[in-house]
């Protein structure tokens, strides 16, 4: 029995929606875990158990590295600096906030991903067509997240989404180098989690001058 393209797409889309909307200090790890889980059925269909292992390993590495990064940022007495959660600029008052913009971007990504899925064949040996939808959707949403980013955390989530989407696309392409390519493409996601965790750890140990003065 062949895989249901609709089912594969549904899990990928739901996971991508979580990844594009999630905010907060653990956003990168949450986005990576959901996206890896959502794209795992697609990876299993084309890459088998090794394909699922790549995405699973990526999710575990992202969670662990985010935690290690946070711990390292808190413990090591290096420079204090950038808080990845503080927006780099204050936008003008407007009716729709950053999440609304992302939701609009996620809606606009559907026709783009649909076109890519039905018109762009993937694969080196046998071309696969029609299964690219969840991957293209995750990639376009990752780009949307990058383009409307207001914080470093947003940038890290965008990079992680793009890395996982690219890794799954490498699994779809089959051939001798598909597994290695997927592993390489995945690397950016745990590194983004490590970086975000490190910056979070550093900023969370920063003393608050007002509180210190009051004490």
């Amino acid at each position, binding site marked *: 029995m062949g895989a249901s393209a609709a089912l594969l797409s549904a899990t990928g889309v739901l996971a991508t929606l979580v990844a594009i909307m999630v905010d907060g200090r653990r956003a990168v790890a949450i986005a990576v875990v959901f996206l890896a889980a959502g794209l795992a059925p697609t990876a299993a269909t084309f890459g088998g158990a090794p394909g699922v292992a790549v995405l699973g390993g990526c999710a575990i590495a992202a969670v662990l590295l985010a935690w290690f990064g946070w711990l390292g940022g808190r413990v090591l007495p290096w*420079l204090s*600096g*950038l808080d990845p959660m*503080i927006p*780099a*600029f204050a936008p003008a008052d407007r009716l729709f906030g950053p999440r609304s913009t992302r939701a609009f971007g996620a809606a606009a990504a559907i026709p783009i991903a649909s076109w*890519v899925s039905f*018109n*762009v*064949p*993937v694969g*080196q040996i046998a*071309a696969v067509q029609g299964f690219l939808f969840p991957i293209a959707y995750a*990639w376009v949403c*990752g*780009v949307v997240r*990058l*383009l*409307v*980013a*207001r914080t*470093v955390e947003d*940038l890290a989530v*965008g*990079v992680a989404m*793009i*890395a996982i*989407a*690219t890794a799954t*696309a*490498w699994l*779809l*392409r089959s*051939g001798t*180098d598909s597994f*290695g*390519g997927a592993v*390489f*493409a995945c*690397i*950016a996601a745990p590194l983004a989690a490590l*970086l975000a965790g490190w910056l979070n750890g550093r900023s969370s140990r920063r003393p608050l001058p007002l509180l210190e003065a009051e004490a």
Partner: protein
Amino acid sequence: MNPLIIAAGWLALGLITSALLRRRTSRLVAIVPLAGATLTFFSARSAVAVVPLGGLSAITGLDRAGQGLLIAAALSMVLVILLQPSIDPSIGRSIGVVGAAATIAMASTSPLLTGLVLIAAVATLALRWIAQSPGRVTLAAGRVAGTGTAAILAASPLLPLSGFTTGDRPVVVGALLATGVAALLAVYPLGGWAAGIIRTLRPVEIAPWLILLVPVVLIIAERIPGGVLGAGSPVFEHVLLVIGLGSAVWGGIWAVRGPESTRYGRVFMADIALCVAAVEGARVSPAVTGALVILLTHLTLAPILLRAGDASLLWPRRVAWALLSGVPPSPSFWGRLLLLEALAAGNIGSTIAAVVAMGAIFIAAVMACATRGRPTNAPAWRERLADVAAWLLVAVGIAVGLAPQSLTGFVFGH
């Protein structure tokens, strides 16, 4: 020597110097690019031009042009550091990561590996810029340049295109690669972020992008249509021709209109946009040679012109601007002449746009020659040394103008 070892050298030295050096010894950051240049000199040589349009493959060596470019860029970076009035030692980290990324990108035939190292370089630079000056402009560097590297990554599973040279797949690949190149080279409409950081940050902060990353991406972009891109080639070439020319005109106009402090950055962006338009739009020999002459001119003169406008290097800076103006026999004259010759072989519209851009760059250079410097408080011996180094660079610039093809042949091998 394998390019991976060279990249490891860049990275390790960058991290070590940024951790160990203090303000008094900060100029020793120059060790990072100097060591990079030395290691690259001994790198393993690839007999064929390296184009990142293949599958996942091992890195075997740098080709002759890549080796020459990386050495010239690293030496230029050394001089940028030595000629700056003051240096923040933590910039060693950015220089190390970008140098390593440039080495691997230049040596890799895999678009996946190229995309990943470019993401690392862009992320490092964007984080530094955001930390230096948090704002919409610096965040845009991460947003737009990050999207460019994401586009290169997205193209990687669709490459190589053997067996798929027609249909929508090569067109999508061509569009993705054009987006990546335009975003990384800051060609409009994806170039606003670079104009912003040139206005916002100190010149030395943008030097790793301007000197180490842009030339590498330009050389890679020049080679892409030569690979098997099939129906994607016209998309890639035409998109970059049109936006390159538009960007050159826009950059030239803003070099004239904008403040004095941003003038060199704008002229650099306009020249790079002209190179992109010519090498993609008119794939004949004069365009590539012209682009190499322009690159060599900027790598020679950037250390002088990226220094803040103080009075100590006033005359070397004026001569450097004259060499950049396009008046014969300056090197920029030969470079732009070759670019114009290549574009004129295409159509009249390209020629007119290029002439307008070159005219604007000439006016900007003349205006820059007329500006006065501000007095400095640096020790006299240091200013004297900087003066000597700047005049030596000017002499190299004049030599490039007198023998452009011989010197580009010496550096790039063709």
